[in-house]
Each structure stands twice: as C-alpha cells, then as structure tokens.
C-alpha cells in the first residue's frame, strides 16, 4: 500500500509539469497581455516596456516558465495586473468554490445514489422509466439554461431566493447554484448506480445473503450497495476536479466570486499569472482526488489490493 502511494505520487510529477507547461504555453500564445491594458489606445512604449519587465514578460517563454515554477515552489504565484498577489486571489476564491463544490457533491451523493438505488431495485417499473427519462432531459439541457431558468423563476418571479450570491457566499445561498452545478453529474450518478445495482442484484453473494435470512435493508446497504458503488465513487472523485474548474458558467450566472470568476477574468485580461496559478492548483486537486478514489476502492472492496 505505502509503496503504491509513493509510486502514484511520483507519477504525479511529470503529469503536473506537463499540464502546467501546456497551459503556460497556451496563455502565452494568445498575444501580448500588456497591449490590452491601455484601453482603445496604444500603451506608450516606455511604460509598456517597464510593465513587461516587471511581470517578467520580456524574457523568452522557457525562462519565464522556469522562473515561474521556481517561484511556485516557494509559494509565490506572482502578481495579477491589478496589483494583487495571486495567492490573495486564491485565498478569496477557493473557499467559495470549495463550498459550492461540497454542496454540489452532496446533491450528487444524496439524491443521485438514492434515486439510483430505487430505480435499480425496481428495474422496468414505471418509477424506473420515469426517472430514466428525466435524467435524459437533465443531461440534454445545458447548465446555463437550467441556471438562468431557475434564477428567473425562483429569484425574480417567485422571489424565494436572491438571484445573485453575496460576497460571503454562505452555504444557504449556494443551494440553488449547487443544484444547478450538480444537475448533469447527478443524472449520471443516478444512471451509474442504477446499472450497477441492477447487475449486482443477481450475483451470488446477494443470493447467499438473502438465503441466510438477512433483513432486506441489510442486504441492500451492506452487501449490494457497497459493491455497486465502485464505479460511482470513481465518477464522483473525478467530478470534484471537473466541478471546481467547470463552475465558470454557474458562477457567472449567480455572480459567485470563486475560481471560475477569477479564471474567466484572467483569460479575458490575458493575465498569465492568474490563469496559470489557478490551473496549477486545479491540476493538483485533480491528481489528489484521483489518488484518493483509487485508495477508496480498497476500502469498498477488500478483494482489491495494492502492492
């Protein structure tokens, strides 16, 4: 187990370097960020040169990348164009997005798995068909449509919620945005659980458990569900990263000042430091989440061993 973890951690290094290098190059290809700072006029050349020097943009890209990575390891993610250190932006953005992600993941787990179990156990019945159809609808409607619709109905027409989230972004305010963010994944979780449950229902160990005379509740939760959750856990694990990075649409609609907002603004303003910094952290989140998922397998299914 320990050796496995070390091996996985070592594998992360090339993935991390590759991913950051790629994003660094992509941001740099987009053109000269200083040119966008002076509005509809040309920056005066002296100030532009000075700014480039300050942000290290006058050096070749490979050198910029090395300096940047060197700084990252000392915890310095550079400075955004508005003079704020990127770490400060992260400190304000990540807690908000993490809260949003937690709400979304909770929705996925609670509603998604519950619906999956219900439909899996009642395969072919009207409940099953109904839920299947609904998940299809949810999957096919883009997030921004769901988001704008809910915002308009709940926020403006019925006045149940505020259409936008305040600066504090408390859990209460994040319920609707979290649901919107989770909706598509929620549908997938339902479908995955359903298939998995339906398949395992006919397996030998379930029949044995039933034959032993165990109560139905115990059969379902301890024997059936535990085994059926493996694909679902994989999905949710990888989804954590996707939700954090992919919240741009939801965060824009509900005016949440999280990671998506900073990334979007960073891209518009071609702020290399912000974009690369946030993506670097997101890459780390992805990698760690994946590792945790793999380790969870062993917990869920003792047959899986890592050496």
């Amino acid at each position, binding site marked *: 187990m320990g050796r496995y973890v070390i091996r996985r951690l070592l594998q992360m290094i090339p993935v991390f370097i590759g991913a950051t290098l790629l994003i660094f190059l992509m941001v740099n290809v*987009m*053109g*000269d960020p200083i*040119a*966008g*700072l*002076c*509005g*509809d*006029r*040309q*920056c*005066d*050349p*002296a*100030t532009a040169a*000075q700014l480039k020097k*300050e942000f290290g943009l006058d050096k070749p890209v490979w050198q910029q990348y090395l300096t940047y990575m060197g700084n990252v390891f000392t915890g310095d993610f550079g400075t955004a*164009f*508005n*003079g704020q250190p990127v770490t400060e932006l992260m400190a*304000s953005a990540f807690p908000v997005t993490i809260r949003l992600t937690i709400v979304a993941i909770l929705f996925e787990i609670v*509603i998604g798995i519950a*619906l999956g179990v219900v439909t899996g156990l009642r395969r072919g019945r009207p409940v099953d068909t*109904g*839920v299947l159809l*609904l*998940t299809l*609808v949810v999957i096919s409607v883009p997030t921004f449509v*769901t988001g704008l619709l*809910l*915002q308009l109905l*709940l*926020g*403006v027409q*019925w*006045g*149940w*919620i*505020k*259409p*936008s989230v305040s*600066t504090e972004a408390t859990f*209460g*305010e994040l*319920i*609707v945005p979290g*649901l919107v963010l989770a909706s598509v994944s929620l549908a997938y979780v339902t479908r995955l659980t359903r298939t998995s449950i339906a398949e395992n229902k006919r397996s030998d160990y379930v029949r044995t458990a039933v034959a032993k005379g165990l109560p139905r509740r115990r059969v379902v939760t301890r024997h059936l569900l535990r085994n059926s959750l493996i694909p679902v856990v994989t999905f949710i694990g990888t989804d954590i990263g996707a939700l954090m990075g992919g919240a741009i649409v939801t965060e*824009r*609609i*509900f*005016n949440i*000042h999280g990671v998506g*907002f*900073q990334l*979007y*603004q960073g891209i*518009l*303003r*071609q702020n290399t430091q912000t974009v690369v910094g946030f993506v670097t952290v997101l890459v780390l989140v992805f990698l760690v989440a994946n590792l945790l998922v793999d380790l969870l397998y062993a917990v869920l299914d003792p047959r899986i061993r890592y050496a």
Partner: protein
Amino acid sequence: MRGATHARWAALAAAAALTATACGGGGSGSGSGDGGAVLSSSWGDPQNPLEPANTNEVQGGKVLDMIFRSLKKYNPETGAAEDMLAEKIDTTDSQNFTVTVKDGWTFSNGEKVTAKSFVDAWNYGASLKNNQKNAYFFQYIDGYAQVHPDGGTQSADTLSGLKVVNDKTFTVKLTQKFSTFPDTLGYPAFAPLPQAFFSDHAGWLKKPVGNGPYTIDSYTKGSQMALKKWDGYPGDDKAQNGGVTLKVYTDNNTAYTDLLAGNLDLVDDVPAAQLKNVKADLGDRYLNTPAGIIQTLAFPFYDPKWNTAGSAKVRTGLSRAIDRKQITETIFQNTRTPASDWTSPVLGEEGGFKKGLCGDACDYDPAAAKQLIKEGGGLPGGQVKITYNADTGSHKQWVDAVCNSINNALGNDKACVGNPVGTFADFRTQIGDRKMSGPFRAGWQMDYPLIQNFLQPLYYTNASSNDGKWSNKQFDSLVNQANTETDTAKAVQLFQQAEGVVRDNMAAIPLWYQNGSAGYSERLSGVKLNPFSVPVYNEIKVG
C-alpha cells in the same frame, strides 16, 4: 418532472434559510428622501490599481469620481469644465499657467490640500518608474521627456515645468502652446494626492483616501466596495445619500436580474440582450443619454493598398454603403445615434459638435456607394474584412450588420466579412504590430469633453491612438494652429476645419455615437449619467 420537484425542494430549503434576508433590498423606502440611506450599484473589478494616474477604464473611474475632486470638474449635464479646487488659472501666453488653489479644502484624513498635493501627484503620475498608464496626460508639461523618456532610463524624477510658489499657488510650464490645457484638468489623472499615498503606498491602495464627497468605508478587492458620505466634505456638491455600495458583477445580465428582483438599486450597463424588454421592465426608470463615445471604422494606412490616390473614394463609398439608421434601430434599440461628424453630441455646438459635418459622405446611398467604390478602383483584394474583438461589447452583431449592409448595397455577398479576434488584448496586439489588412473597429471614449480630444489623439501624425497611422500635413498644421489659439471659439473653428480634412480623406468612417444606459430601482430619484456615462452618484436621492 423530477428536475422540477428537486428544484422546488431546493428552493424551499433556500427560501427557509434566507427568509430573513431574501427581500432585504426590495421594499421602497417610506416617506421622502432619506439623506442617510445607502444605495447599491453594479460594478466591475477595476483592471488596474486604483491610483488616479493609473486608472484608464470606467470601473476604476467610477470610484475616483466619488473620492476625488480636481482643479476642475466637468458639469454632469453640459460637460463644461468648471472650477472646483481652482480659485483661478491664469495665463498670458497659453504656455505658462499660474494655478491658485482654493482655501479650505482637505483630504478626508484631515490633511490640507495644497499646491504641493497637486505637484507631487503629477510628478508621481509622469514618472516612468511608477508605471502609470495615464502618464501621457502630462506629456505637454515641460520636462516630461526627462522623467518619461521613450527608451532608456529617466534622467529626472520631477517635472521641471512644475514649481510650487507657496501653499496656494503653483506654476505650470508647457512645452508648447495649449490654450485649452486648463479644461483638461478635470480628468482624474490630475487629482491631488495626500502624503499618505507616498509614505504608505500599499496601505493607501488597500483603502484609498481622497478629497471627494465620499470616503471608502471598506474595500474587499474583487467583490465589493462600501463608500460612505463624507460629512466634512467642503465642496458644494455634497452627497445627497448616505453612501454607495459598489458590488462586482461578472455578468451584466446577473446585475440586471438582481435589479428586477430588488436586490440592487442601480445598473449602469443594461445588457444588449435586455434592451428590448427594458421599457416594459423598468418604465421610466431607464436612462438612455448621450455619452462621449464614438464608434468608427479605422483603416490601415500603413498598408499600401489602403493608401492609394483613389482609396479615399473607396472609403467614402463604404461609408455610404452603411445604413446607420437601420442598424442603430434594430441592433442597438436606439442606444446609439447615427454619426454625422467625428466628435460627440455631448460637446454641444459651442464645444465643437457639428451635426452633419460629414455631409452626404455619411448618408446611406447604395447607388452612390457603388459608383464611388468603382471610381476609386474597387475594393482592395475584392473584399474588405472588418476586424474586431469578439469578447466584449456585442461587436459581432453590428459588424455583421455593417457587412450585410455593404454587401446589399454593392450587390455582392462576398464584399465584406467580419474577422473576429478572440480577446481584446490580442486585438490590441495585432493593431500595435500593424497587422490589420482592412478596416477595423475603433472606439473612442473621450478623456475630457473637448473637440481636441476627439481629433488630436486619433488623427494627428503618430498620436497615441492613431491606430491606422493616418498622416496628413494639412490636418496637423490646423490642429497646431488651433492649440495656440487663445480664443476658444476660433480654436473650435480651426478644429472643425481639421475635421473637414478628416472627412475629405475619410480617414475613418464614423458609425454612431454611443449612449450611456442605466436602470434603477423605485427607491432612487435624481439619477443621471454624466457625459462619461458614469452615474452622478452624489446627486442620487434614496427613498
């Protein structure tokens, strides 16, 4: 519907959690104006640190407008430059000015505003080492070349043209005659700065201190700023409300939705998609007033194809092929006005705006357009590509509409196509690298309401915003003459003559004047936009 049931469930939970706050900003106040009530307004994250000489966009400008007062102030209605902190600005030769500062002004931290507050601030703004993006505003002051050389290191730290005479007086020496120089001093870059700005710069940036009608109560970068009325403000344009909370919105659609739901009082940028509904949604709580912004199509004069003898005719032809009226009506819902000169209606007739100066060169006439383009030798390469940035400002819609209009007029559906560029920064890079091959979007928001500001920076040889690199001796000499002319009316006439040169060569095709738009909640009154399309916050009454 499954989705719907869960939405209900979630909404109920949310409603339960939020009952206390859900309708917080909704109810309209009772009784007449409450001088202590605070209003909320939409905002965008300022692009640059909030230093006066470093703020060149409207979001940061909004704040500076509230917390600073300069020597002059532009009248929110007429745009005329009026004395604010200046007791008088004297000159005999339009080149050497003596500025006298009024008594009794202080910064909100109690420090007196003196001649030194101005001179120090201007020196800071001009100095190359401070990276101030508005440094060029000081370029006419003597000694600018030493503090802000085009290359290499600066040989001086302060402008030799600025001298403090005493607490109340300082002198300004310019490198050239510039009769309207005092009228430029209302721009925020010329604001005075307290000593705290220099002694504790980082602290000042966290919570800027100025001398305007508001002080900053709290500032959470990237999300909101709470400004409150400064009771000790010595000026006569005191705040009529208790304060303003600026909230950052990533998407102006969300801000608009928040306004409808009653969570926000003022939106100063109504999204294009909502223009159709805005009358129904807000009724007369919607403002649509002229702002000092003009949209034009500029041309790459560095490209020999666009710099031939006949190309002026081609450009005029293109101008005549654009149905401005129809585009402003259908796409912009009349939030733009078809342009008939190269300035803006906010200047007023006296300030140099002249309706119809463009003449029939701006009138839609497909037959004449076709004829002119034919006489001029046809479209270079058989097709024009209009380059624009696609990330903001719904530029795609109008560029496509302009192309459509041109294609219809010329009877050739390949005559004009749009050429989108992903981001504004990339668009500016390509312009800076002179990579334009055809007309491109050129928007101009005035810095100060003077006809000079609409002409010199855009069309003077090698001027800072002359993106097409147009150069014309006659135009340059007329502008020089106008700048030395001490009589304002005569100066304006000379500028208009220069504008005539722009017209005869069709250096840029004027498209439309842009309006500022705003919507506000029922509890506000006295809302208006100044010529810079910024709400006049201090005059808004709440309740």
